């Protein structure tokens, strides 16, 4: 079988594919010392997913012009408070934005 692997930008592909390898699921480290942080990471990832979905849906509605000025003001305030609260929670558990993700195997990353 004459297999070929050919590219006009080898270094760029090594770099990009390297990023994907980094996203592969790591082994579960069931260390009792960091179980609390692990649980917080999992819960906050799901909360962050819901927050982003809410935000996207809100932007879609604003963009479509289906909300009044009062609605937009109220929605904006809620989203802003949610974002600030998430920042505080991330700080409490020492988590960064990139920590809040889950690899779903063949489905790719959650976010």
């Amino acid at each position, binding site marked *: *079988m004459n297999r070929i692997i050919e590219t006009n930008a080898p270094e760029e592909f090594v770099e*990009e594919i390297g990023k994907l390898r980094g996203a592969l699921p790591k082994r579960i480290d069931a260390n009792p010392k960091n179980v609390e942080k692990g649980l917080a990471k999992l819960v906050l990832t799901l909360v962050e997913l819901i927050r982003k979905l809410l935000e996207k849906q809100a932007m879609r509605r604003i963009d479509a012009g289906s909300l009044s000025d009062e609605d937009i003001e109220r929605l904006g305030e809620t989203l802003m408070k949610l974002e600030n609260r998430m920042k505080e929670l991330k700080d409490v558990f020492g988590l960064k934005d990139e920590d809040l993700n889950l690899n779903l195997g063949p489905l790719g990353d959650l976010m």
Partner: protein
Amino acid sequence: MTMKIYAYAVIDSSDKIKGPLSGTEGAGIYSIPYRDVGIAASDIIDECLFSSAVKDIGAGPAKDRALTHEKVIESLMENFTVLPFRCFTVFNGKEDVLSMAEKYYSGFKDNLERLYNKLEFGIKVIWPGDIIRERIMRSRGKNNGLTSISSPVKNFVKEKLERYNIDKEFEEEADRCIEAVDDLFSRFYVEKKLERLKTNKLLLSAFYLVDKEKEDDFKRLFEELKNSPGDLKYLFSGPWPPYNFIHLTPYPEKVFGAAQEMFDKGASAQRVERRLMRLRP
């Protein structure tokens, strides 16, 4: 020390595998027949499997084992249609292999027929994602009217809305590029699997299932694409075993039999669908 069975692939023949073919740890490859298919396998001592090297597939003995796995499948492809197993697929014994074969036999047959005389090719495309995003931002910057900030909340909403619209335009541009690349190859593939924007720069990871007779045409088209002017960079690989085109359901005849029975009893399509969803593995 226990002997286990390392499985490489399902093949479309229950005959013996001809010629000496070595697998993991140098063990000979043989076929375990089940009805009219076979499972290409070799014996392995279980201690080998749990060596520390298995932890990292990118280096050391684990990497060698992964390469051997791939090499065995390639050799098998020369004479058979193959359904490759994932690397390090190990069974406790022959009975377990046969039990698995019984469970998936019908699916094996469907896939072997569908993938007969087919090869998989991969194409990855990099685009200048950062430059495109910047260009979109520049073009929007002229018209977005962000200067009239009246309150922190409105400012927050405007920023979010702006980001949402930039992301939307970015994704629309990505879709246009992907469609252009995919259209070029559409004459030659029978099935495809496209993954878009896995990273900001990795625009497309495409997997194409191609008839063996069209292998050269497919490669030639890639050469043309690679040399065409533009900002896109390409990586082409193949032919590979059809890793991305195997769809298996255990006991599909039972699943479809159950669905048929429900239809016969007058169940609605939605109810049958719900039941099928529950039966899926």
